[in-house]
Structures are given as structure tokens and as C-alpha cells.
């Protein structure tokens, strides 16, 4: 819509000129998105290396590994990873991956990149708050990383930081300054994510361009929108929990602590209950995992539709399931606490809600299959990651049904089965969402295509590798191998195969982890040498592809785009191409949009009912764009 000329004049007028204002202290949502993605990526790599260190003693207990010991002398003793260092690595791996990698890259990275672009906005509603959100996030990253270098090492109580282990300094090596910094870092992180969340929600509600109703938004925006709402509602609970835990640790209160005897010393606290923390933590913790899976679902939906050249199957039902999942995610937290001593009636109630949440997830899966059915499937790298997402999401989702059942959970709770379950959902599905998104939107971010061959190599090693790591872990769960164990010596009920499986998993983890460096190389290579990207290399319909690659400051030149149709006009019968961008007026191309009172005759709608139609807001004559002039 916008002419190049307009873009240039506007861009030269208002774009900040100095390097610092442009790339470092930028308020441009695209730059902030890239800053988030790079920072989160670095945290992800650190988390990956930590998982490698953990996998060494699990597969080869007691064996000296001089190379690793030389690289990380503080963690090893006699060439062997120390048990307290193992716990620190385990805690930091979980914390970094969940919060500082996945949450940050989805909401901070893709939220920042896609929400304004796909809503047809020039920037976030509050660009300055947006910039502040990133810098506060960076501060929290630095505090978290600093905790690795303090006396006693980083926190060692797991990413869930259950008190009293996390509350009593003498309880573990990492429960000293490391745990304090962990809590402070999390509090700062929460401040950052609330600032971000306010921005994302406001932008979606208020800055959508003309014609872009909520029911025309791409599913990516819907998913990010609901994820941002989940964050806004859930994170404050962890903030409250963290403040109370800090007080218990340093100011002698007893919110979580009762009288305990640690290392022979009596700690005279009274009446506190550790379950209170678990409730506060999981009130955040469970919505949190949906904060990580919903955006991946949105990205997969978008990419599958684009590469199948078909409208997403059951668009409205997809939105309803996103909302249903978002809502239900707030009333399932107790399924993490079935064997914690929580009231058994409460457990039963949480069982019900937990298994109900499987229904919208199943619906989404079948809708992805429905989108593939009779499509024209292009296997670009993002598409491979998107269908890989569907496969792993199904696998990981199904094992959740075991754990959501309190009776089965008695046996499986805190075993490797749980580790396998959430790593297939989080570490595989969510991460596939991240990769799919980066391969797909890289040309929009940087104006260059990523290398397809390297991308496909990366996909195959990662797809096969992730299953090789996490599928066998279920068997360890069957055996009853407890999680968060540094070693398994003398557990007589374990069959000999258990150790062989551990070795297999470790080898697979090293190879799969190494494959991620192919991706990093690809990013650097493509930034420098990649093929120049046109504005719309994937022949996509959504708004961001109607802006140049990369979009200029302000995204749209002088005039905002006007939207005439929904985001999924692929292969509409009678259209001149197999995609129609959202900005093409209805009198130029037919639309497949179903519910807005306008059903093109050329489209044979299988089921007869068509709702709406009363407001008539979508007739072509009204939508020719002439109304927009007066508005400016």
C-alpha cells in the first residue's frame, strides 16, 4: 500500500541517527525484538552447556573428564563434577531455559517483532516502557549469571526453589547468596515482563489498524496476546512469593518455615507452611508453561497454513481453544502438588481441570492435521520445524494425561517420566516454535534469507536428536528413576539397562546440542552472505510481509495499511494467486473469510450455516479504502 517514496521521506525525517539511539537504546520494537532474541539466545546457549555438564556424571558416574574440568575449574573436583555443582547446574538450566530463554524469546522477541507488524501499528503503544522492559530484563539476566560466581555457587534448590531448602542458608551450598540473587533476579525479571505484557496487550487492543478486527488477526497475535495476559495475571503471584521468601531468609519471618533442625542447628521459626510457596509458585508456574507453548502454537499455525497454502482449519475454533487453554491454565496448578500433602479433595478438583485442558489441546492438534489435509505442502525449514512441533506436541501432551491423574502420579511423580514429559513439550515443542519462527521471520528481521540446506540439516539433527534424548527418558520413568539425582549408585530396583539408557541419552544430548551450533553458524552466515530477501518471500498474507524487509522505522511509511480481509486467504478459488494479502481490497480479489457477512459466491462452503451478516460491515463498496483519507 505504502509507496517507497513515502517510506523514505518519513524514515529520513524521524529515524534516530546516532548509533546508540538507533541500535542500543532504541525504542523501535524491531530493534528491541532483536535485542531480546540475541540476549535470550545467549542465555539459551548457557543453559544448553549446563545441560551437557549435567549429562556427564549421569552417564559416566565418577569418571574424570579433563576437558570439561579445565573449562569449568570451579565446578569440578578431580575431573568430576561436584554434587553441589550438579544441583547448581540443574537449577540454573531450568531457570535460564524457562524464564530467560523461552519466556524472553517468545514474549520479548516474537511479541515485540510480530505484534506491531501484524497489527499494522507503527510501534508498541509505549515504546519507552518497551525499551525499559528490555534493559530491566538484561539486568535480571546479569544478576542471575552473577549468582554463578558467588561463594557457595548458584542456587541449588531447583527452578521451583521449594522452601525450606531454598529458605535456610545451611540447608545446601547454593542456599546462601546464590539463592538470594536468584530471588532478586526473578523479581527484577517479573518487573520486566509485566512492563512488556502491559505493552503487548495495549498494543493489540488499541493499535490495530483500520479494518483489522480481533477476528481477523493472525493466530500468532492471538496466541501472544493471550500469553501476555497470562503473564500479567500470573507473574505477580511469584513476585509476592519471592518477596515473602526473601523475608523468611533474611528478616526472620516464618511464612514458609516451621521449626526445623538443619545441620544440627535449631531454627526457631513457627507455624509457616512450605506448601504456601508451592501454591504461589505453581499459580505462576503452570500458566507459565502455557506462556511458552501458546506462542509456539500460534507460530506453528501461521507457518503450517502458509506452507500448506491453505487457510488454517477452523480458525475460530483455534481462537476459542487458545482462550480456553489460557483460562484453564489458571486452575490446574495443583496437579504439581498431588503428593505434597495437599487436601485430597483439592487434588480431585485439579485432576478434573487438568484433564479438561487436554480437550482444547487435542482440538488444536486435529485442526493442524486438517490444515495439512489436501494442502500443497512446501517443506521449507520453518515448515519442517512446524510439523515437528505438531509431532512432539502430541507426544509430550499425551504423557501429561498420565501425570494429570493423581493415582498414576503417585508412581510417576518426581521420576524421569516427568522430566521426559516436560522436556518433550517445553524443550522440544516450544523450542521448535522458536526455530520455526526464526527461520520464517529472519528475512523480515534482517532482509536476508537463511540458508535452507543448513537449516534442513539443523532440523533433521534436532528432530531425531530430541526424540533420541527424551523418548528413552520415559522408560527411566517407568523404572522409577528419581529426578534431580546426581548418581544412581546402589539403587537395587533399577535394571542394568537403566545405565545404558543414560549413556544413550547423554550421547544423543551432546550430538543434538552440537547441532545447534549449525544454527548459530547459519544465523551469522546468513546475516553476512544470505540471499537478499524480497518483501514477501514466503508469499504470505499477513501485514508484516507487505512492509519492506526489513521494515523501516515506523514500519509503514506515511500511511498505515488498511485491512480488508482475514489473515488466511490462501488458495481462494477465483483468486489470481494462491494467496491474497490482507491489504488487497475485496473488489480486487475474492475472500474466503467466512463470518463477516460477506461470503463470495465462488467459494463453496461445505456446511450451510453462515452466521453474522447482520452488520453488513464488510461489503466491498464500503471497504474500498476511501474512508481512510478523512481520518488523518
Amino acid at each position, binding site marked *: 500500500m505504502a509507496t517507497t517514496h513515502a517510506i523514505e521521506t518519513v524514515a529520513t525525517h524521524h529515524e534516530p541517527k546516532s548509533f546508540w539511539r538507533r541500535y542500543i537504546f532504541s525504542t523501535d520494537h524491531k530493534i528491541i525484538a532483536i535485542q531480546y532474541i540475541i540476549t535470550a539466545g545467549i542465555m539459551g546457549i548457557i543453559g544448553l552447556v549446563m545441560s551437557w555438564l549435567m549429562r556427564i556424571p549421569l552417564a559416566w558416574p565418577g569418571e574424570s573428564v579433563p576437558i570439561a574440568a579445565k573449562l569449568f575449574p570451579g565446578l569440578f573436583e578431580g575431573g568430576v563434577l561436584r554434587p*553441589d555443582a550438579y*544441583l547448581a547446574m540443574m537449577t540454573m538450566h531450568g531457570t535460564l531455559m524457562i524464564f530467560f530463554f523461552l519466556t524472553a524469546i517468545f514474549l520479548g522477541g516474537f511479541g515485540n517483532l510480530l505484534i506491531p507488524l501484524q497489527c499494522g501499528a507503527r510501534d508498541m503503544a509505549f515504546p519507552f516502557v518497551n525499551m525499559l522492559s528490555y534493559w530491566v530484563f538484561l539486568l535480571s539476566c546479569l544478576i542471575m549469571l552473577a549468582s554463578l560466581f558467588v561463594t557457595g555457587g548458584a542456587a541449588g534448590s531447583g527452578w521451583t526453589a*521449594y522452601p*525450606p*531448602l531454598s529458605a535456610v542458608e545451611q*540447608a*545446601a551450598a547454593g542456599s546462601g547468596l546464590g539463592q538470594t540473587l536468584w530471588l532478586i533476579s526473578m523479581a527484577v525479571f517479573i518487573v520486566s515482563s509485566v512492563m512488556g505484557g502491559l505493552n503487548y496487550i495495549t498494543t493489540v487492543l488499541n493499535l490495530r489498524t483500520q479494518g483489522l478486527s480481533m477476528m481477523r488477526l493472525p493466530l500468532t497475535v492471538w496466541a501472544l496476546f493471550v500469553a501476555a495476559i497470562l503473564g500479567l495475571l500470573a507473574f505477580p503471584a511469584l513476585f509476592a512469593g519471592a518477596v515473602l521468601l526473601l523475608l523468611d531468609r533474611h528478616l526472620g519471618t516464618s511464612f514458609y*518455615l*516451621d*521449626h*526445623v533442625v538443619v545441620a544440627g542447628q535449631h531454627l526457631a521459626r513457627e*507455624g509457616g*507452611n*512450605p*506448601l504456601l510457596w508451592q501454591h504461589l509458585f505453581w499459580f505462576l508456574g503452570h500458566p507459565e508453561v502455557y506462556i511458552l507453548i501458546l506462542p509456539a502454537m500460534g507460530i506453528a499455525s501461521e507457518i503450517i497454513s502458509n506452507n500448506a*497454502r*491453505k*487457510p488454517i*482449519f477452523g480458525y*475460530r475454533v483455534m481462537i476459542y481453544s487458545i482462550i480456553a487453554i489460557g483460562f484453564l491454565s489458571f486452575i490446574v496448578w495443583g496437579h504439581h502438588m498431588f503428593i505434597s*500433602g495437599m487436601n*485430597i479433595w483439592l487434588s*480431585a478438583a485439579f485432576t478434573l481441570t487438568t*484433564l*479438561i485442558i487436554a*480437550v482444547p489441546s*487435542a482440538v488444536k492438534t486435529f*485442526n493442524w*492435521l*486438517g490444515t*495439512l*489435509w*489436501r494442502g*500443497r*505442502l*512446501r517443506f521449507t525449514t520453518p515448515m519442517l520445524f512446524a*510439523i515437528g512441533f505438531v509431532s512432539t506436541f502430541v507426544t509430550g501432551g499425551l504423557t501429561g494425561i*498420565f501425570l494429570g*491423574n*493423581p*493415582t*498414576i502420579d*503417585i*508412581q510417576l511423580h*518426581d521420576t524421569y517420566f516427568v522430566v521426559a514429559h516436560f522436556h518433550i513439550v517445553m524443550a522440544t515443542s516450544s523450542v521448535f516454535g522458536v526455530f520455526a519462527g526464526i527461520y520464517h521471520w529472519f528475512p523480515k528481521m534482517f532482509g536476508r534469507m537463511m540458508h*535452507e540446506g543448513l537449516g*534442513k540439516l539443523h532440523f533433521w539433527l534436532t*528432530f531425531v536428536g530430541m526424540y533420541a534424548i527424551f*523418548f528413552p527418558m520415559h522408560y527411566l520413568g*517407568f523404572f*522409577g528413576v528419581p529426578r534431580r539425582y546426581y548418581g544412581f549408585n*546402589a*539403587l537395587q*530396583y533399577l535394571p542394568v539397562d537403566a545405565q545404558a*539408557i543414560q549413556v544413550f541419552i547423554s550421547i544423543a544430548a551432546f550430538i543434538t546440542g552440537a547441532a545447534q551450533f549449525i544454527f548459530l553458524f547459519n544465523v551469522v552466515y546468513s546475516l553476512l552472505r544470505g540471499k537478499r530477501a524480497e518483501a514477501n518471500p514466503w508469499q504470505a498474507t499477513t501485514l508484516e510481509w507487505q512492509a519492506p524487509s526489513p521494515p523501516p522505522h515506523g514500519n509503514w511509511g506515511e500511511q498505515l495499511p488498511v485491512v480488508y480481509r482475514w489473515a488466511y486467504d*490462501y*488458495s481462494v478459488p477465483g483468486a489470481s494467486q*494462491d494467496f491474497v494479502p490482507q491489504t488487497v481490497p475485496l473488489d480486487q480479489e475474492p475472500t474466503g473469510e467466512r463470518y463477516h457477512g460477506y461470503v463470495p459466491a465462488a467459494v463453496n462452503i*461445505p*456446511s450451510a450455516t453462515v452466521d453474522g451478516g447482520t452488520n453488513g460491515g464488510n461489503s466491498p463498496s464500503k471497504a474500498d479504502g476511501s474512508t481512510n483519507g478523512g481520518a488523518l
Partner: protein
Amino acid sequence: MVPRGSYHGVLFALAVLLLVGVGVITIGDQWWWLPPLASVHGAIIDQLFTVTLVLTGIVFVLVHLLLAYFVWRYRVRSPEQRAYFYLENRPLEVVYTVIPAVAMTGLVAAGTQAWFWIQGPPPEDALPVRVVGEQFAWRFQYPGLDGRLGQFHPRYVSDTNPFGIDPNDPAAKDDIVATELHVPVNRPVVTYLNSKDVLHSFFVPELRVKQDAVPGMTTRFWFIPTKTGTYDIPCAELCGQGHYIMRGQMVVESDTAFESWLAQQPTLATTLGLSQ
């Protein structure tokens, strides 16, 4: 334009079929399975586990077969090929909303029913045992002839009273303390769990027993062991640096063997020197 690389669809289909094959063979054949069962309620857990495994297995195989078929069948093969424009199918969507909903309801019903029984009140004649977790060991307290357990509180813990039993509680005097858990076979046992310091979890894999020990609370789990033998009691809740070596021993034995073992254990009165 036919994009190159549509053979990746075929590869993907093959990879997914391989996954399904491995999954079905290993799990269907029970190559690797739960530890051999040794308790009454464990049979219900195993049964529910198997039912859930079959149900989810069917979905797993079905979805992956469809996924494999679709990516193989509908990969781009000619420039003329065009996607079939199709928005949705409400009846179909209703069907695949209702079927999981019904299946889930069934699982919820079966799961919670079993849950209430397992977590419900123990039989009257159950043998009470207190299990106390600490970094990094389990301790066990049996009632004496009065059949009642003396009170526990961490404030009583000292070098001479590592069990933390209230020395002034009349019920405690004849209590028997041990560092190994012995129970008679085929007789209900109810464990009362406490912790001196941090969270622990009482886990006996063969007996399908797991319950957290929470400081400041008493939790309960009852079971009926069905097989004599010696079992590990690993700690299942992260409790610090020695979490991985925190281990107890559980011996399930005949009534007579149990009685004679119990008779050899010291009472609290003797360990605290109260009898004098």
C-alpha cells in the same frame, strides 16, 4: 514452481513411522516396564497406567500415522497442484472435541475414585509407623504395646534424641525406634510422615508408594505389602546435596519374623535412658 526438497515430506513421514514403530514395539512388548508390583493398591495404579497407556497409545499412533500420510501424500509434486480451499468442518470439530472430552471424563472418574480409596482412611487394624525424613536419612518409629505413637516435633531433636520424639508424652515411652523399616506382609501399614528439616519424599517404587514429608505437617500414606523382600526407599523430593544418596531400607517379612525383629529394637525409653 515446484519448490525443491519436497522429498523432505517423504523423509518426515518415514521418521515419524520409525518413531511409531519404536514406541509401539518397546512399550507394547514391555521391554522396559515398571518395577515388579508388591502392594495391593499398586495393582490399581498399574491398571490405570495401562489403560491410559493404551488410550494415549492409540491417539499417538493415529495422529502420527495421519501426520505421516498427509506430509507424504500432499507434498508438492507438480506446478499445477493447488491446495483445496477448505475452511472448516463443524461436525467433525465437534466430534473430535467430544471424543477426548468423554475419554478424559472416564479417566478422571476412574482416577479420582482410585485416588480417594488410596488416600482415604486406612483400615482400623493398620500398623502405624512414623517415618521421619532428615538430610539425608530416614528414621522409623513404631508404637509399643499401647499401640500409640508418641508425638514428634523437631524442637525435641538433640544428639540423644535424634528421632525428635516428645520425651514427656506417655505414649512415647514404649515406642520403638529403628533406622530400617520392617513391615509384616499382607497386613495394612499406615505411615505418618514428618520431616525435621526440608522437604523429602517417601518413595518405594515396587510398592507404588510416594508421599512428601513436609516440615510443619504430618502427611499419611497407607498400603498393604504383598511380597516379602527388601526394598529401597529413595528420597523423591530434592533435599540438598546428598539427595541422591538418601536411602532407606524396607523389609517386608512374615509376621513372626517381623515380631522377632521388632522385639530386638530399642525402645525410646532405653535410648533416652528414661527407664532408670
